[in-house]
């Protein structure tokens, strides 16, 4: 009798917590959608902020977010995948491998503001200023820029990519590696032709998840490149020699606006925070939607990957 009573209580508690999580999510998304859906118009998505950010759109922030995310993934993905391949396929369980594994795990636990400060100290003041000194002719690299912000974010998402890639590599059956070695393949041929093709979907899923983590971060870019207000886009027109034409190109040395930072600025730094509230909601909705789409993409990839494995 007593056991059954405890069982009922336990079930009620567990079910309650599960519903609490669900409820919190619904409330959060609900309030964002309710507050933000009304301001989403074509103009909101395509115009620049005006009148102290109380009017206009958020296009420069959307553009900046997309640019910096792409730049981040271009930097982090090759580095992370290579490190994971080394860890799983080459290093085995040697002392060096253990040290690398430990530092990756530690890197994953560092608060993001620390990455922001590291970005200023390492990328801007050390690397950037060094380049400027060698180059001569004033400050160009040694100041906050999209390049450094993306590099800082890349360091932040590196552990996510490494861990996910390592997991995808480890999931490839040992028997396939053995078969490859037994046919006379070298280690690299085995990685390149047997392991990577099978791990590709898993690696892709991991990197998309890392993008959705990085895209929403504010702290790492706070000091490294994002701008309070920049009505123009970080674009430079490069002349094509002998043609007289000029091609617009994203300028990685320019500053940029970014969605999460834009929300932070409007909420805390605006002269009229109350007047920016609808825009804050709208911006948040767009940011959440972007991350949500990326997560959906990762999930559908994973589902397709699993299904692919089963049919094999």
């Amino acid at each position: 009798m007593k056991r059954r009573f405890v069982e009922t209580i336990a079930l009620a508690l567990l079910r309650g917590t599960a519903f609490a999580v669900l409820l919190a999510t619904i409330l959060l998304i609900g309030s964002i959608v309710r507050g933000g859906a009304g301001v989403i118009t074509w103009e909101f998505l395509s115009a620049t902020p005006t009148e102290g950010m109380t009017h206009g759109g958020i296009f420069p922030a959307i553009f900046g977010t997309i640019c910096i995310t792409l730049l981040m993934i271009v930097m982090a993905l090759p580095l992370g995948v290579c490190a994971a391949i080394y860890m799983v396929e080459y290093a085995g369980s040697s002392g060096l491998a253990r040290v690398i594994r430990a530092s990756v795990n530690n890197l994953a636990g560092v608060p993001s503001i620390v990455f922001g400060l590291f970005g200023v100290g390492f990328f801007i003041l050390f690397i950037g200023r060094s380049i400027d000194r060698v180059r001569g002719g004033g400050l160009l690299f040694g100041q906050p820029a999209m390049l450094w912000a993306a590099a800082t974010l890349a360091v932040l998402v590196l552990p996510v990519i490494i861990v996910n890639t390592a997991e995808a590599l480890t999931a490839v059956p040992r028997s396939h590696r053995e078969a490859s070695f037994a046919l006379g393949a070298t280690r690299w041929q085995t990685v390149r032709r047997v392991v990577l093709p099978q791990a590709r979907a898993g690696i892709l899923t991991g990197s998309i998840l890392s993008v959705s983590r990085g895209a929403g971060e504010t702290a790492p870019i706070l000091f490294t490149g994002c701008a309070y207000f920049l009505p123009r886009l970080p674009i430079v027109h490069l002349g094509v020699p002998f043609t007289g034409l000029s091609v617009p190109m994203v300028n990685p040395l320019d500053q940029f606006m970014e969605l999460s930072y834009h929300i932070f600025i409007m909420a805390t730094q605006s002269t009229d925070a109350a007047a920016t509230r609808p825009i804050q909601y709208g911006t948040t909705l767009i940011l959440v939607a972007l991350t949500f789409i990326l997560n959906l993409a990762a999930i559908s990839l994973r589902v397709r990957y699993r299904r692919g494995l089963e049919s094999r």
Partner: protein
Amino acid sequence: MKSSAMVTPRPAREAVSNASPAKVAFGGVSFSYPGRQALSGVTLDVPERRVTAIIGPSGCGKSTLIKSINRIAEIGTEVKVEGRVTIDGQDVYAPGVDLVDLRRRVGMLFQKANPFPKSIFENVAFGPRIHGASRAGDLDQAVERSLRQAALWDEVKDRLGTSAMELSGGQQQRLCLARVLAVDPEVILMDEPCSALDPISTARIEELIEELRERYTVVIVTHNMQQAARVSDRTAFLLNGQLVEVDDTETIFTTPADRRTEDYITGRFG
């Protein structure tokens, strides 16, 4: 179909002791993994173009014995090898041995069929490709020849592009054999190749082994005494990492010299 071989004993073959030169030779080989010795002092000649069966109870070192020939046993672990394992007189553990070349010469079929999750064609073409073949004509030729040799061509010739994972277990194992044959090995190692297969698929593999002995040196590890009796010319009995006895299969199964061999093949232990 020669599935009748399942029930009637194979006609006696000419005695092979001293009739064929040793292709692979073990000279006092001791092999240990960290904290575990798998082989101790094994001396064994594997005659060329013959089928040699290795029998013995689980954990007696059968797999290690054959995996020490193509040096697959050492992957992902540390091993200590004493004595000499030679192919055509060359020590495979000598410093400077090219593992890629060694493993091209010594192919291996595993306990469980392990085709790559690629197309049938790509599975067979894998070996030639990693060894540098790239001309489409050469690859087509190698794939067809190997699949024919593995008696799989007629079943798959119209669907070379489909995934190897759609084949049955027996077909997968024959595909793995074709994959091995495509790199033109001299020695083929088989680690209980039929243990996961049904009797009919097993019979087909055994027929293939019969054909392979004309061109290749085959070493097969098996748990199945009847299989050893059916397919092999020589049989070696291994117990606790030591070679108890090796002789013509006929002799081992009729008049074994060692009491332990007799006990094992008559099913008194193991």
